[in-house]
């Protein structure tokens, strides 16, 4: 690669955490918010595969100015302000479970690398100078750069740091680390072997060849804590103390590990970052050809603020008034922002996020939802093509499985529904037990009363419309819908987490099998034993961000019976874990393709949730913000990276 980097620097920095699966919201985030932003936001979340029709061979960094031009022409200074409606509990590097928190942490710590393409070693190297995959696909070796320093006197980040974190934090039972499952592979959860090769090199070894392991190795997306900081909590096994530690919660130990330093966090208001003086990557912009030259000076803004807005509409008014520089635009408002002279609208059609209508098949949901015909009926009622066309104004791609149509594995014969209400009524009658049926136009239950379902979601402009549409359509098939709006945090905590015993189940017997296993707090046990704190039937807002290169992992994680994110209580009648393993241990990615496509086809048939769409994201910028990539995004690897953006006159126009 040449000594290239245009100041737009379309390196997919959100790819740092690569293929970790995130709980994400469709429209709660107005601005850039990493993987969680999904629906109405801007940032790509992971890499796509080269086989897709839309894949481009264009190198996003190709049209880079020469170093001299770059240094001379990029004005520095100003405060770049971005609006968000997503809340977060801080920059807790140890408690990343959602994209919001991940996005905040990534401002102050880079992580291992960003993926630039499908080839294993096609990466943008950040903390990891080298990323080498063994020919037999059993080992990945990473070498850390030699100038990575924690702050607050915690010393250098070394191989020892990573190994200590693996052993004492990331895989320790007492920490309940969200991504602990990434540290083992295979059906039997065989642990990955981590070995210190030298001071800066770590070797990860899996028991058998796995073509997807280079995409799924865990270290590239992790943020290690300094040993000296975490050791007292490890000694006491005090996870509560660890996550409440000020340094951990605000990631103030970040040293030179990221482009920004957190200077002020006013809860429910703003996070203010200032340009890091000693960003480690600047040195490598000069010495490593793979690091764009722009990074010799990046970031170009003096400060970067993430401003919280409770109302999306206020955020957009602030952008119009020139008080905010970047804000996400909901699909139904795009027309208002096209052709404006004072703002630039950026379009990103490659968003690896699936929106869907969640269905609670656990014991505290309507018991008939476990019947596939009822879920089919719901798929007619909540018609994804109508939602994409009319509610999202065509700014979304319809999906009938957990994969975008532009992705490499979308099945050609995915099951679709035409939105027929007559068909929905028929399926409801057929699919429910005999004590359900129609009384006139009303669908009644065993007690003779109309069936009432509860929808929970986070209110925003598009999800309010989605909810209204669902209510109206359910009403037409004789079912009443109660809607409950809540916050993102509450949705995760009270509705998506299932670590509560179902009625009549004792606390100690909630897990799976004889060993009472709990895959995670989101899937704490079998559907008839573990339930959410509050009952619900249907759920909007929450969807999933994932890497299209590795859908087998996401499918299994979300819908495998004993897998981490199966909060829905879906019980597949096929061995998804086995299929995932078949794909993962195939000779090559090509040979795994058929299995992965089959998994996605199976989901399409089963409809564990009502698949809806993957969004096209729009972001509006003030017109004095320069360094944006070309719109629409040319490929999945193009990113809107504010680290290499700048104000055309060096200062914001306010």
């Amino acid at each position: 690669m040449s000594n290239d980097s245009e100041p737009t620097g379309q390196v997919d920095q959100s790819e740092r955490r690569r293929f970790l699966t995130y709980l994400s919201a469709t429209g709660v985030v107005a601005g850039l918010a990493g993987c969680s932003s999904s629906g109405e936001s801007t940032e790509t979340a992971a890499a796509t595969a080269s086989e897709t029709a839309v894949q481009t061979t264009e190198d996003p960094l190709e049209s880079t100015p020469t170093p001299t031009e770059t240094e001379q022409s990029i004005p520095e200074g100003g405060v770049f302000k971005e609006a968000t409606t997503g809340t977060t509990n801080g920059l807790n590097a140890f408690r990343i479970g959602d994209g919001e928190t991940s996005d905040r942490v990534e401002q102050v710590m880079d992580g291992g690398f960003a993926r630039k393409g499908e080839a294993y070693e096609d990466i943008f190297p950040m903390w990891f100078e080298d990323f080498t995959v063994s020919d037999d696909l059993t080992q990945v070796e990473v070498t850390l750069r030699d100038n990575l320093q924690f702050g607050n006197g915690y010393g250098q980040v070394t191989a020892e740091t990573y190994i200590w974190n693996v052993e004492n934090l990331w895989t320790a039972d007492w920490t309940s680390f969200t991504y602990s499952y990434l540290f083992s592979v295979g059906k039997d959860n065989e642990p990955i072997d981590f070995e210190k090769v030298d001071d800066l090199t770590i070797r990860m070894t899996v028991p058998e060849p796995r073509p997807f392991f280079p995409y799924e190795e865990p270290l590239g997306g992790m943020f290690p804590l300094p040993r000296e900081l975490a050791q007292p909590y490890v000694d006491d096994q005090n996870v509560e103390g660890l996550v409440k530690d000020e340094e951990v919660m605000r990631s103030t130990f970040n040293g030179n590990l990221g482009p920004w330093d957190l200077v002020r966090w006013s809860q429910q208001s703003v996070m203010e970052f200032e340009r890091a003086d000693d960003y480690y990557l600047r040195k490598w912009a000069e010495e490593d050809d793979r690091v764009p030259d722009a990074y010799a000076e990046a970031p170009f803004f003096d400060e970067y603020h993430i401003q919280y807005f409770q109302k999306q509409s206020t955020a957009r008014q602030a952008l119009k008034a020139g008080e905010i520089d970047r804000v996400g635009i909901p699909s139904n408002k795009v027309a208002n922002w096209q052709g404006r002279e004072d703002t630039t609208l950026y379009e990103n059609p490659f968003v690896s996020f699936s929106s869907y209508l969640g269905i609670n098949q656990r014991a505290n949901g309507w018991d008939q939802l476990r019947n596939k015909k009822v879920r089919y009926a719901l798929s007619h009622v909540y018609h994804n093509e109508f939602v994409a066309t009319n509610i999202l104004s065509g700014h979304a791609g319809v999906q009938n499985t957990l994969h975008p149509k532009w992705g490499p594995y979308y099945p050609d014969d995915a099951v679709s529904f035409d939105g027929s209400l007559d068909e929905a009524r028929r399926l409801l009658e057929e699919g429910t037990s005999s004590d359900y049926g129609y009384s006139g136009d009303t669908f009644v239950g065993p007690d003779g009363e109309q069936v009432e379902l509860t929808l929970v979601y986070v209110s925003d402009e598009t999800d309010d419309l989605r909810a209204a549409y669902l209510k109206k359509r359910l009403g037409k098939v004789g079912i009443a819908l109660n809607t409950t709006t809540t916050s993102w945090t509450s949705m995760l905590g009270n509705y998506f987490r299932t670590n509560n015993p179902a009625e009549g189940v004792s606390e100690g017997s909630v897990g799976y099998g004889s060993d009472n296993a709990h895959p995670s707090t989101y899937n704490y046990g079998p559907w008839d034993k573990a339930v959410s704190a509050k009952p619900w039937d249907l759920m909007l807002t929450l969807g999933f961000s994932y890497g299209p290169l590795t859908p087998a992992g996401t499918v299994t994680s979300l819908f495998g019976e004993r897998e981490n994110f199966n909060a829905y209580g879906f019980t597949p009648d096929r061995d998804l874990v086995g299929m995932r393993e078949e794909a993962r241990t195939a000779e090559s990615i090509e040979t795994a393709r058929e299995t992965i496509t089959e998994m996605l086809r199976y989901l399409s048939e089963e409809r564990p949730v009502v698949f809806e769409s993957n969004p096209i994201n729009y972001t509006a910028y003030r017109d004095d913000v320069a360094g944006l990539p070309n719109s629409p995004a040319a490929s999945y690897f193009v990113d809107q990276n504010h680290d290499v953006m700048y104000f055309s006159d060096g200062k914001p126009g306010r």
Partner: protein
Amino acid sequence: MKWYILKRVLWTFVAMWIALTLTFGLISASPNPGQMRATMSCAAVGENPQECREQFRERNNLDQPVTERYKNYMVNMVTLNWGWSESRSQYVIPAILDAWRFTAQYAIPVLVISTLVGYGLGLYSAYKPYTVTDYTASFVGFFGISIPNFWFALVLIILLGTRVELVPTYYQSGIPIQQGWLSLANLRQLILPVTVLLTASLAWQMRYSRAQALEQMNAEFVKVAKAKGASQYRLMIWHVLRMAAVPLSTSFVGSLLAIFWSGSVIIEQIFAIPGLGLMTYTAIVEQDTPLVLATTLVTVFLAIFGNLLEDIAYVILDPRIDYGNR
């Protein structure tokens, strides 16, 4: 009267104690999610859930007799150890200390302005009822009462913030920290929130004081004062207002709390002000129990303390009220 005030102060403490005790009762009677989580986590790693429950109870002093726990609870409350807020990732007391300034900076001016201007306009309207001035003031009053805060705020943002760019469209919490609470930049960004809140509270104060003043206008003592040649100013301020202020003062604390609950929660959401209103709203929505409890208790304490001040104000405003024998 001193005895009365002393008794009222003592009663204030009793009322606070009752509020705290009721809260303790509710907490004790509620399921403990922490205990449930701890038990399940232990079970997850193959340990005995019963033992884990006991360990959790021991760690959190839940195994102690209820009297001991009650004592500890009261000590915690008095020493301001009110727990951890999940929604803000900070302890409750620092959370309140962070937030209250952002609310007070506009709520206090609104209260003062609406009281002074509202009472002034009310008195004037009462003095010259059914005139153009009275009708105009009444129109303004009804407009302020009728118009929804959230709608009015959005209209002002669009008109004055976006179109004219006269004032900021949202509140930047960094400005008072960096430039000072009384800096021009901070005052400028408070114009819209204060205006919106003022319309409602001013209108309410004006209509209420007008009604009270009208009642007093025909009282015997006013006629006597008039007959003795009291000036218009003296008549209205020293005689009418003083008497009208007795019932008005009873609504003062109510007004303050009304501004908070009906105004701040909405205003702070729209203008992105990180004050008590937004904090309380978020705490409720996110079911952040310690923070909800704290904001509720603060409100209760405010109401109790406010009532004490009101009772004392009666005596000062109207010497005929004698609590000497009570």
